[in-house]
């Protein structure tokens, strides 16, 4: 058995069967998650300005505005540390961001009723920034999902899985899930036209 180890480990080192790529993949997972939280924060930062602009034209829409404000508060209070995050924390984070997306979506639908608001330059600028940020969120999420898949491939597929079993003992990571409500929203996102 001892002979086997002496043969296998140099073999693995020589072909680089995961000794480098597995930790690298783990680092990439954490970096991509940090990027996702970054883009969500960027969105949260745009919201106060948006709420104030809308208030100026549509102050009667109190319920919708307050829903956005409270959803934002909930979302920003859930912070995660990518290197230490648990699946439960991640799920809570995703859930709160999803609720904020819904509240924002409803707000945008409501603004359709106010032509003066839609024509306001500040509102249009905020719209452009919000759309840009939503796209960045989508892109960062997609990359995160791809990175998780790459990592899971490394730890479950031979021969790197062998290195994982012998050396790192990482568990397969849970995939970032998009719940049903958000799936439906993504498929029928309200389009804002100028």
């Amino acid at each position, binding site marked *: 058995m001892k*002979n086997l180890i002496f043969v296998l480990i140099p073999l693995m080192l020589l072909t680089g069967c995961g000794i480098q790529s597995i930790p690298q993949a783990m680092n990439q997972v954490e970096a991509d998650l940090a990027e996702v939280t970054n883009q969500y924060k960027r969105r949260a930062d745009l919201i106060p300005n948006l709420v104030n602009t809308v208030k100026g034209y549509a102050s009667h829409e109190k319920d919708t505005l307050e829903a956005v404000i409270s959803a934002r508060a909930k979302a920003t209070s859930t912070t995660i540390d990518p290197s230490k995050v648990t699946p439960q924390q991640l799920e809570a984070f995703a859930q709160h961001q999803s609720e904020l997306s819904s509240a924002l979506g409803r707000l945008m639908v409501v603004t359709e009723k106010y032509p003066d608001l839609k024509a306001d330059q500040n509102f249009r600028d905020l719209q452009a920034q919000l759309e840009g940020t939503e796209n960045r969120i989508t*892109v960062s999420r997609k990359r995160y999902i791809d990175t998780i898949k790459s990592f899971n491939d490394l730890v479950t597929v031979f021969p790197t899985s062998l290195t994982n079993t012998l050396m790192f003992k990482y568990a397969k990571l849970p995939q970032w899930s998009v719940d049903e409500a958000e799936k439906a929203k993504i498929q029928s996102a309200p389009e804002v036209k100028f």
Partner: protein
Amino acid sequence: MFSGLVFANSEAENSFYINGRPVFDAAGFLDQGTEEQLNSVLQQVWQKGGPQLMIITLADLGGKSIEEVSISIADKVKLGKKRDDRGVILLMSKAEKKVRIEVGDGLEGTLTDLATKRIIDYVMVPQFKQGNFSEGIRQGAFAIITQAEPEKKWLEQLDPNLQNYSGALVPGTLENFIFTLLFGLGFISVFVWIFLIFLFIKLSSLNRGGRYYSGGSGGYYGGGWGGSSGGGYSGGGGGFSGGGASGDW
């Protein structure tokens, strides 16, 4: 859908060759003169150290959103140099009547979501609505180059008498063949290793004292080959994060 676009794997860069030119006009929006001018201008700006802008027009988006198509092109093309990231893609689709400016990480400070939205809404779309596609694209491209680095005055630096640019054509089939060959060789090396491992397990159990096997091809994707020969307009590993803006006409 991407007929004419060639995807090739080069050593470090994953470069994306569109006939080696900055402009790929599948939708036929551009007239000959404008296309030649844009090819020349964009190539020269890039060679002088300016941003790397690519203009792509498609007949349709194949059922995807323009943002999806745009970022997938950006991820393959990787315009701009690695860590410099000053690439930009101007993408248009004829059937859906959509336009998007996809901005590389290095230009997000100047080509903000807002700035690109304005270029689309105020410079390009008004022209498109009147059917002036060539002019709209040209003005949009120049606006992008100017807005990206206003202090550099890239356009003003150029000789007004622009020569015709003829980029190197990349033989797609040759590259695909070489890639497949090397990938195949890399794949075979995996099976060789597995065979050797079993061989040594067997030998070890016969108490021969393990022999040490050295050498090997390293990696499962048997390396690519060097980038294209000079003259091609290709990406350098630049990154994109989804910044920019979209619009329609």
